[in-house]
């Protein structure tokens, strides 16, 4: 399949400011050399614990955050080189859906006005066309035209998230980044949104970058999964393969940590000790070695390379170095 997005060695380092004169002493490496390829029509999921850089990755790919280095090739164009205006126009192709269904809609705007904004920003359309498109998109996401007149506080969380999705869809993009779109929602609503996303993808042949920390959701929705830890990619692979046969000890631990509601399917659990270190002060060598149950002496000093294990499977771990 054709890659629509290729990210190569993407880095985002935040200066850590201290003191009132804002002297920079150190860098927080939110993204530290991420590479990945997403093919058309596919869902690429990013999982990882809090602070691992998932959101940063999602936003950097859209250049909502300026990368420190690396390239982002979207549809054959390296968008890190684009000027502000061309980047603005590219927004019709790349969109974003946010985690917080409460914070991502302007509380003073009706749904209709929120949906109108992207159209008005990019096209000059007649009021009638705009209304039509709004109504159409509302139906697409499972709302009714009446919802256009509502204010966000009059909607439930699931409905708001649908509005967020509608806002992203109304420009008919090819590629959408979802930043934890369901983690703020109740299970029953979460399922509604997930099925909606599935439907939309198949109907509109969209490509998703889906950020989540919930492995069950990721497993359900994605074709490819990337596991991140402290700004680095630990493992990438096709979903089924990765879940059934995780390569990296971190992936293994993550998968085993998920509570399983089915009492008949419980398995032995690997409980990781300690917590995620700060990206301002990441461990040397393999960033995971401080918590790794299989850590070896060289892990503390040598940074493992990005290895291709089999056709689609990559990982960075010394277990596979030879």
């Amino acid at each position, binding site marked *: 399949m054709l890659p629509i997005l290729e990210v190569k060695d993407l880095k985002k380092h935040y200066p850590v400011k201290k003191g009132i004169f804002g002297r920079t002493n150190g860098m927080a490496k939110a993204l530290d050399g991420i590479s990945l390829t997403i093919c058309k029509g596919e869902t690429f999921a990013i999982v990882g614990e809090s602070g691992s850089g998932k959101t940063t990755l999602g936003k950097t790919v859209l250049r909502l955050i300026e990368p420190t280095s690396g390239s982002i090739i979207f549809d054959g164009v390296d968008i890190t080189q684009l000027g502000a205006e061309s980047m603005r*126009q590219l927004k019709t192709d790349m969109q*974003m859906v*946010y985690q917080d269904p409460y914070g991502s*809609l*302007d509380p*003073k705007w009706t749904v209709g006005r929120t949906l109108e904004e*992207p159209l008005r*920003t990019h096209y000059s359309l007649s009021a009638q066309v705009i209304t039509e498109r709004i109504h159409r998109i509302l139906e697409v996401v499972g709302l009714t035209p009446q919802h256009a007149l509502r204010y966000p506080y009059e909607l*439930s969380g699931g409905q708001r998230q649908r509005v967020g999705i509608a806002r992203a869809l109304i420009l008919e993009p090819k590629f959408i980044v979802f930043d934890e779109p369901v983690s703020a929602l109740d299970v029953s609503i979460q399922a509604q949104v997930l099925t909606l996303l599935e439907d939309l993808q198949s109907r509109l042949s969209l490509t998703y970058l889906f950020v989540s920390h919930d492995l069950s959701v990721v497993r359900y929705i994605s074709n490819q999964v990337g596991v991140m830890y402290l700004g680095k990619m630990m493992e990438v692979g096709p979903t089924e393969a990765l879940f059934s046969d995780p390569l990296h000890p971190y992936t293994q631990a993550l998968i085993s940590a998920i509570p399983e509601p089915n009492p008949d399917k419980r398995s032995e659990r690997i409980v990781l000790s300690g917590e995620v270190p700060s990206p301002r002060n990441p461990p040397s060598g393999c960033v995971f070695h401080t918590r790794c149950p299989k850590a070896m002496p060289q892990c503390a000093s040598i940074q493992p390379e990005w290895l291709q294990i089999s056709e689609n499977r990559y990982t960075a771990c010394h277990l596979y170095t030879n």
Partner: protein
Amino acid sequence: MNRAVWHPIHAFLGKLLQRRLVFVGLVLVLIWVVLALLAPWLAPYGPDAIHTEDKLLPPNAAYWFGTDNFGRDIFSRILYGARVTVWTGMVSIGIACAVGIPLGAIAGYFGGKVGNFIMRVMDTLLAFPSLILAMALAASIGPGLFGALLAVGIVAIPEFARLMYGQTVVIKEKEFIEASRAIGVRHKSILFHHILPNAVAPLIVQITLGLGSAVLITSSLSFLGLGVKPPTAEWGAMISYGRNYIISGEWWMTVFPGLAIATTIFGFILLGDGLRDALDPHGRTSKK
């Protein structure tokens, strides 16, 4: 809370009227505004009409609040004074808004060196005790109504700039702002259509409270002789004038204009406080 089905205005009014104190405030402010508007029809005498034969009369049937040393009717003067007060309040707060809000918004939204500079200047202005700054300004601009309201307006600028700055900094971090940027909306549009409307509530509160302090500062200036020119009926000036008469027992020359000032400010403060509660149930806007 997200499932509230009321219309926002109904909800707002409901909350507002729930509090009796706010209602008192609203009524007080409205009374003064109405009195100011209708002063020429309500006042039994002209504000400067001299009746030397009736000078220094205590409150009586003909002169409800008594008369001053020229036999001017204190009641009429207070009514006309309301016009001066309403007018200075509106114009000076208008000036403060017109300058302070854009400055704060620009500094908050774009930040950087310019923003830093703007806020530094505002902080510098805030470092002056406001009354002393107002006095120096009023004296520099030259006494009179114009000088006073300009001075009061300038003194209030940094507060609006600071408030708007704080609001902008908070709002611009909200996801819906980034969502708009993700769509490609331009900065100007974001500032006008997203940030400003979301900052309106605390601004309204600040305007209300600002009106209260404008009344206070204007009357203080007049009291110190830096405000309106005689014989303009202004409350602070009336008190200043009347203070010499307290000792000889003519308390009405001081007490009534003082009550007028106090009730006006009281009204604005109650209203502002109530608006804050109604517009922002968590009272978070009160802090920077």
